């Protein structure tokens, strides 16, 4: 990130004042340099709340957001609490994103309030690797509670915002106290490394590794950016598409965007 030494010192100072008595939980790097570079501390802050929404038309019903969160949870240690109102996840897909289903404890609460209460309990506990909640609504006060709970224990909290209607796609959602907010949109998959004629009998080309447009829409202590990445592999790691990896301008540094400052 572009910054002068003076700014750097100032940031450290601010972080120290903000931290107060809570312990420093460290960060979880994505292993993708472009993303880690724009995140303060060089990775996704542990002991903080992160919000993930799904972009696009919403036809996929939050599948990409779920796997993005699963990939993050997969790289933590310990059990993962996944709070939902209605079960529609497929365990084999979680395993394919690196998250062993044996590690995931599902809590199926009857309503959204219950979901928020469950993830708060999980975040306060401290023994979990990650706590995930799927909810359509998260009021500002609730997000603050979750953020404080995550800070107190050092567990990473992930809130998947499910959309009830497909019309609110452009809506960035109400303000929240989350440390980062991500928006994941499915992109056409990576082209398969197949020479043209060997599969020419196929009616349409095959599907390669999934690609996502990952937007970091809000980041406390950092700037927004967006990236084009390949979806989680079996270890939960994202990757930079190979044809982009060479293009420094695009992939080497995430594109810094001007986002309106929003006070949460």
């Amino acid at each position: 990130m572009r910054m002068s030494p003076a700014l750097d010192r100032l940031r450290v100072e601010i972080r120290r004042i903000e931290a107060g008595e809570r312990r420093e939980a460290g960060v979880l790097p994505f292993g993708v340099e472009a993303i880690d570079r724009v995140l303060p501390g060089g990775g996704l802050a542990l002991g903080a709340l992160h919000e993930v929404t799904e972009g696009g038309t919403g036809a996929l019903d939050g599948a990409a957001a779920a796997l993005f969160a699963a990939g993050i949870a997969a790289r933590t240690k310990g059990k993962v609490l996944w709070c939902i109102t209605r079960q529609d996840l497929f365990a084999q897909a979680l395993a394919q994103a690196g998250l062993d289903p044996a590690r995931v404890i599902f809590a199926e609460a009857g309503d959204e309030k219950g979901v928020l209460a469950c993830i708060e309990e999980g975040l306060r506990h401290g023994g979990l690797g990650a706590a995930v909640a799927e909810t359509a609504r998260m009021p500002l006060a609730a997000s603050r509670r979750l953020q404080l709970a995550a800070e107190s224990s050092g567990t990473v909290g992930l809130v998947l915002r499910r959309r009830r209607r497909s019309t609110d796609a452009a809506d960035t959602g109400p303000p929240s106290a989350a440390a980062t907010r991500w928006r994941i949109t499915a992109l056409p998959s990576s082209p398969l490394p197949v020479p043209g004629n060997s599969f020419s009998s196929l009616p349409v080309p095959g599907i390669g590794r999934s690609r996502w447009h990952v937007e970091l829409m809000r980041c406390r202590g950092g700037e927004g950016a967006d990236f084009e990445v390949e979806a989680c592999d079996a270890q939960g790691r994202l990757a930079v598409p190979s044809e982009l990896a060479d293009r420094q301008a695009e992939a080497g540094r995430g594109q810094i965007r001007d986002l309106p400052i929003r006070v949460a």
Partner: protein
Amino acid sequence: MVALDAAAAAAGLRIGMPAAQAQATVPGLALRPAEPQADAEALERLAVRALRYSPLVAVDASGGLPADGLVLETTGAAHLHGGEEAMLADMVARLARIGITARAAAADHLGAAHAFARRCARPTLVVAPGESRALLEALPLAALRLPAGMPAALHRLGFETIGDLARRPRAPLILRFGPELGRRLDQAFGHVPEPFEPVRPVDLVEVKQGFMEPIGAPETLARYTEKLTLALCAALEAKGLGARRLDLLFHRVDDRIEAVRIGTATPQRDPARLTRLLCAKLETVAPGFGIEEMRLAATLAEPLANRQSVSSLAEEPEADVADLVDTLSNRIGERNIYRLEAVESDVPERAQRRVAALAEEGRRSVPPARWPRPARLLPVPDPIDTIALLPDHPPVGFTWKGVRHRVKRADGPERVFGEWWKRDAETAAVRDYFRVENEAGERFWIYRAGDGADPATGSHRWFLHGFFA
């Protein structure tokens, strides 16, 4: 005749008929001598078994002897069993399994529930709060638990239903029929409380604390909860037991009993942990004018031996989350905390099942899926309209929920055969799964029922089954 079964009732017999008359009406009638004592004991045993639903269960003798039912205070307990409807259905089904035909009703107060359970034709009935009065007024007088003979006397005066009686001025009625009539009416409508003495199993591990002055402050309740838990854990340790279920009862000065119940996934006797679980529920307790006695009982206890923990000093052990699972189970119900375990089945909707959150990890014999699987699976596949070349081409496009998707890339088919060794209906069934991607990059999992050639293998209609990320 004291009791009869459905067949006997159909043959025209009635309760109260002399045995000789009954035998004359139905030749070859099987008669058994009544055993009121054994009946009462059996009912008592049922009451103890019904403790699984609620900490407050009693044999319902309020309708006059002999007792013919159970009464449960289910406030705050129903959601742990999937709601009131599900809980009542479960009760009736369990009783049916041991050969008892039962009817269950849930209502605002004991008096109303008593009447509905005995007067409703359906096996289970849940009356929404505040609606019992209207239903009650339509019931006949006999539902009111009046002393023998009184309903008939009232009937002679022209009273048919409870509503007729309730709408009359009370004083003249009581002058003639005594205060019992007024009391029963008030109990049915919930104007006066109706305390009952809950059953306790005989070999119960229980500690109690009486108070000279009634207590009510939340901090005081929490303090004594901790003291009682310590005492109970000591008692459990002496017996080598751990608690799976704890009931904390608060006897109020006005003769009502408030109850708090917690459950744990594994036997426990760690006072700090049990206290925390109990205190989390204390806010549901209404102390009213004060509480004069608290009782803490381990209504379900299992052997718990001391155990040496194995640890390698080199690596950090994985944190224990059993206490978190207990906390959440007590909040949203045990059945809603689970893990998903892979099942050896190619049919996607049967490829996973729920297991208890703290269950031992399976034998891991199920190989991981070889082909990409969708992150989200529709509970019921959604029919879609497609244009596709048979037998094995993916569709050119499909329409789902009124939106048309053009297929730009696709993989497949992945053929899934029906489990003919389990279900006859799937002897020939085949599904051909395709992974398709539209222009925007959205990836779907769709399938065609049938192999595209033979109609016996399926309807050849297309369905959407899941979403890839």
